[in-house]
């Protein structure tokens, strides 16, 4: 079995690796992911059968990582590992997700590995359990046929909904996301503000507001040539927001 271990503490990875080896010396083990993003990249690269995922990790926590792994449609079974996360454990229990408590007991680990060999995760269960617990993400991941693109949330200038898809645009590129504009608005308020039925903008990137000859208002963002239309409905709210911000 191919097993990936992700934890931000080197000694925790070391111990888990030793326990997995003791469980069965034939396992192929990757045990050097020290944050969620590394774990996700290594999962895509090595396609492990099982990932032992610590919950509290820098850059991307274990919950978001699990979500991205299941979005990448990998055949990887996820088992969470945690020292103490009361609310996460409740959510895992409710959604029948497997987890291990630190310090991990060899017998429990053996059970988890055995279970992983037999069953696969239900993506909805992961989605369901982790969404309610995750804090606003620091990175957004776009899974495409070319692979994984990761955007820092701070670098995103605006989200725009176009027909079915929502795109996120930075100064250098633009990617398609699976999230809905509504969900993004909920997650990233107040950093992002809605200026139109189809657009959210990064409030830190707002440069100026222009009035067009037709009386419409348009927004200019730092480092972006595209002008975004502000709808009449959101115009007043935006003005109020900017005034409050300047106070």
């Amino acid at each position, binding site marked *: 079995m191919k097993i990936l271990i992700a934890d931000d*503490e080197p*000694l925790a990875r070391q111990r888990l690796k030793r326990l997995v080896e003791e469980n069965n010396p034939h396992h192929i083990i990757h045990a050097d992911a020290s944050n969620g993003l590394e774990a996700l990249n290594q999962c895509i690269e090595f396609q492990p059968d099982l990932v032992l995922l610590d919950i*509290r990790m*820098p850059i991307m926590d274990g919950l978001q990582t699990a979500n991205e792994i299941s979005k990448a449609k990998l055949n990887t079974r996820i088992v969470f590992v945690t*020292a*103490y*996360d009361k609310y996460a454990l409740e959510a895992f229990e409710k959604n029948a997700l497997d987890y291990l408590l*630190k310090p991990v007991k060899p017998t429990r680990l053996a059970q988890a590995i055995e279970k992983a060999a037999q069953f696969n995760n239900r993506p909805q269960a992961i989605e369901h359990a982790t969404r309610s617990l995750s804090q*606003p993400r620091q990175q957004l991941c776009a899974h495409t046929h070319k692979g994984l693109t990761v955007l820092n949330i701070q670098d995103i200038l605006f989200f725009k909904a176009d027909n079915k898809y929502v795109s996120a645009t930075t100064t250098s590129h633009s990617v398609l996301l699976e999230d809905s504009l509504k969900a993004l608005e909920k997650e*990233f308020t107040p950093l992002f503000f809605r200026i139109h039925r189809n657009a959210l903008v990064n409030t830190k990137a707002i440069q100026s507001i222009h009035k067009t000859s037709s009386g419409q208002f348009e927004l200019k963002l730092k480092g972006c040539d595209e002008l975004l239309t502000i709808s009449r409905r959101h115009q007043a709210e935006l003005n109020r927001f900017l005034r409050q911000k300047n106070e």
Partner: protein
Amino acid sequence: MDKRSLTDPTPFLPDLCRAKNVLYLALVSQLLAILLALNTSFIAGDFWISLSLNALFILWVAFTCAGIFCLFKQQINRISTALASLSMLLTINLSTLLMTWVTSSLLPALDLLIVPPSGQISLYLRNVGISSIFSIILLRFLYIQFQWQKQTKAEAEAQLDALQALIRPHFLFNSLNTIASLTRSNPPLAESLTEDLSELFRANMQTSKRLIPFKQELDLIRQYLNIEQNRLGSRLTIHLDLSTVPDDALIPPLSLQPLIENAVYHGIEPTAEGGVLSLTGKIQKNTVYLLIKNPICNDSTPHSRPGNNMAINNVRFRMEQCFPDQSKLLISSSGLEFQTQLVFPYHNNQP
């Protein structure tokens, strides 16, 4: 622990939609009526007539105010205490004026108020004078009660926090995990970390001591940081410079350690590359200054990890108890750095 919801503080204005509070108000109004009747009519002999007229008048005013306060209780409790007091004072006086007008001008036939020969103006002045003085006393009483309740509640909460903030369970289990890992690869280190962890727990359970020498707190911090250093490895760089802080300066136990733990938890642990945790100190004019610096973790919300203020409030409360008005706990952030400063007077003998 993190998602513990705080109940709303007791409002300044008692809920006058509740029968019990209206009854209290009626009783207080009757006491005022008796006072006024005793003063004006007891000797003259028409005490009972005067009492019943006064009582009727004051009850009208009281119930009008109760109705208004009941209707607007949410708005009143939302504004500041000063503004609430002012609006309550105004309401009481305006209803007094209104009732005076009703009884003297609208219903003169009932002859409820004896209009003095000097005219209605003095009648209004007298009534407003009495109601102002009485309502100021009443508001003052409410304010003192409000403050007292707030303080009792804050003390109870601080004690609860003190119990809960002792050691983060997350830290405990991760430390045990570190030790479990080291028992095979480095048994001597595992042994010494077990000792450090025990010391940390012992200090946390020993709550009876009010003040300890700074050296003792520093030893504890060294042991704590030793555990964290082994957990976090190269991500944690520690910079200590406390050579000028006197070893015998007295400090409440576990007043600095939770702040250091906070710095590690919020500043080092959430970042992939880690950073420098610095603890420096100096003594100046018999005052000790301790400064903790840690990097601000670079994410969208400055303190995405919950429970940030608990340790700080707890330490602040206990410093204030030991050094009333002489200690300070200052928090500031500049750019990429978060700073926590603890300032307290230098004492070296137990009071």
